[in-house]
C-alpha cells in the first residue's frame, strides 16, 4: 500500500482514530508522518484524522502548502486555511478557486468527482422530463444487464408515464 499523502513511498504507519463513534483511518509513510507531527508511537493530542483528511491536500499538491494556505477566494474572501479549520466553504465560487485542492479530497470522500442525478430545470418542465427519461432509460439498460427484472419493469412503467406526459407537450 502506498502512502495516502505523497502516493510515492510505501505506507508504514497506520493510524485509526475514533471520533463521535466514527472511525477514521489513514495509512502514511515515515516522511509524511513527521510532517504531520507524528513521531514513533506518540501523536500530538490535537491531531485529528478528520481534520487531517481535509488538511492533507496541501501536502499532495506539489508540497506548496504555504501558497495554498494563504490563497483566498476572490468572491467571499475565505482563505484555504479557514476552510481547512472549519471544513466549510464560503461560497459557490470557492469550488472553482480551490478546485485543485478540493478534487483530491472529494476523490477520497466521494464516489466520483462528477455529478450524477437531479439537475435544476428552472421553469422548464419539459427539459426536466426529457432529462429524467434519458436517465431512466440508462437505468433500465443497466437493470436489464443485471437481470434485475423487477426493477426493470418498474423503470419501464415510469418511463411510459413520463413519455405520456411529454406527449402532452407534443414531444415524442
Amino acid at each position, binding site marked *: 500500500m502506498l502512502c495516502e499523502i505523497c502516493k510515492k513511498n510505501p505506507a508504514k504507519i497506520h493510524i485509526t482514530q475514533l471520533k463521535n463513534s466514527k472511525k477514521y483511518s489513514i495509512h502514511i509513510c515515515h516522511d509524511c508522518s513527521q510532517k504531520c507531527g507524528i513521531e514513533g508511537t506518540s501523536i500530538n493530542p490535537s491531531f485529528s484524522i478528520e481534520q487531517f483528511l481535509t488538511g492533507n491536500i496541501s501536502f499532495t499538491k506539489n508540497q506548496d502548502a504555504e501558497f495554498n494556505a494563504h490563497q483566498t477566494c476572490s468572491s467571499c474572501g475565505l482563505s484555504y486555511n479557514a476552510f481547512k479549520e472549519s471544513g466549510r466553504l464560503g*461560497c459557490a465560487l470557492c469550488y472553482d478557486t480551490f478546485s485543485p485542492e478540493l478534487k483530491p479530497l472529494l476523490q477520497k470522500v466521494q464516489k466520483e468527482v462528477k455529478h450524477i442525478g*437531479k439537475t435544476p430545470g428552472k421553469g422548464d418542465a419539459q427539459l426536466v422530463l426529457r432529462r429524467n427519461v434519458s436517465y431512466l432509460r440508462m437505468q433500465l439498460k443497466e437493470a436489464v444487464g443485471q437481470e434485475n427484472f423487477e426493477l426493470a419493469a418498474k423503470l419501464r412503467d415510469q418511463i411510459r408515464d413520463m413519455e405520456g406526459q411529454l406527449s402532452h407537450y407534443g414531444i415524442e
Partner: protein
Amino acid sequence: MVDLPKKYLTECGWLKTGKPIDNLVISSRIRLARNIEGIPFSQWASSTDLKRISEQAKKAIRNASSLNNPDLFCMDEMEPTDRYFLAERNMISRELAKSGIERYVAICKDQTASIMVNEEDHLRLQVLMPGNNLEETWKRINQIDTDLEESITYSFSNTFGYLTACPTNVGTGIRCSVMVHLPALVISRRIDKVLSAVTQMGITVRGLSGEGSEITGNLFQISNQWTLGISELDTIAKIDTLLEQILDQERKALDKLIKEKRSQVEDRIWRAFATLSYAQVMSSNEAIELFSSIRMGLNLGIFEKPSYDSLNDMIVRVRPAHLQKQAEKTLTATERDEYRAELIRNWIKN
C-alpha cells in the same frame, strides 16, 4: 415570543406506524442541502446576506404548493424549550435550535416535512415518513425541491452538482436514512459482525439522533455518505439492498434466540415491563433502552398493548424539552427523571 401551537404536543406524522406495520423499521428520512445562487453560504454570510436568504426562502416556501401553507418559526422568536422540542422530534437540527437571528424553520401541518433556513446551507429540506419507505419519501421531497426551485435559482455546477457549504454534501446534496430496531443482533452480540460485513463503501451506521450520537435502545440509523458520483435513485437502491440484508440477519437472530433462549428473552421483556410500571426515577436513556424490550414483546406477541404508534410517540415524549412542555414548567434534571417515571407509569397503566 411565539408559542408552539398545542397540536405539536399531540400529532407527529412520521412517528405513526406505516401500513402494514413494520416491526423493525421505525422511519425513513431524506434531506436535501440547497443554496441560493450568488450569496455566500450561511456560516460566512453577513447579516444583510442572511436576510436576503431568508426573504427569498420564505417567498419560495409560501409559493410551494406541495408544502401547503406550512407553519413558519423564527428561532430568535422562540423559547429555548420550544426550539429543543422541535429538535427532539427531528424537525430541526440541534445547531439550528442553538441559533437565532434570520434562522427559520417551515414545518408542514402533518409534521412529515420541514425546511430549515440558514442552517449550514441556505436551505435544508427534509421529509420523514413512517416505516421503510425511502421511495415515497424521495418522491415527496423531490416535488418540494422542484416547487421551491420555481422561485429560487439554486447554486449548481455541472461537475460538482448542487453546491453545499461542506464538500461531504456536494452533488445530490442528499442524505437518506432509515431508523431500524435490531435488538436480537445486539443481544446475541452479532451486531458488530453483521454491520461490518454488510456495510459497504459510502454507507454509514449511526445512533438514534444521527451524527455523533451513541447507540441507544438498539436503534440504528443507516445512511449514505456519498453524494457525488451517485444518483439519488441509486443511493436509495443501495440503502434498500443493504437494509434487506440487515433485516434478514435480525430476523434470523431473533428466531435463533427464541429457539435457544426463549425464557431469558421473555424474562428480559417482563423485567422491562416491571421497571417501566413501577420505577420512581428514570433517565431518558434508561427509558429508551427499556422501550426496546417492550417493542420486542409486541413483536413476539407477548403484549397486545401499547400500540406501536404510542411506543414510537413515547421515544420522543420522554426527552427533556418534551417533558417540560407536558409539565408546562421548567424542570431540573432530578425533577425531569421523576416526572418521566410518572409519565411512563401512567402510560403503561392505560
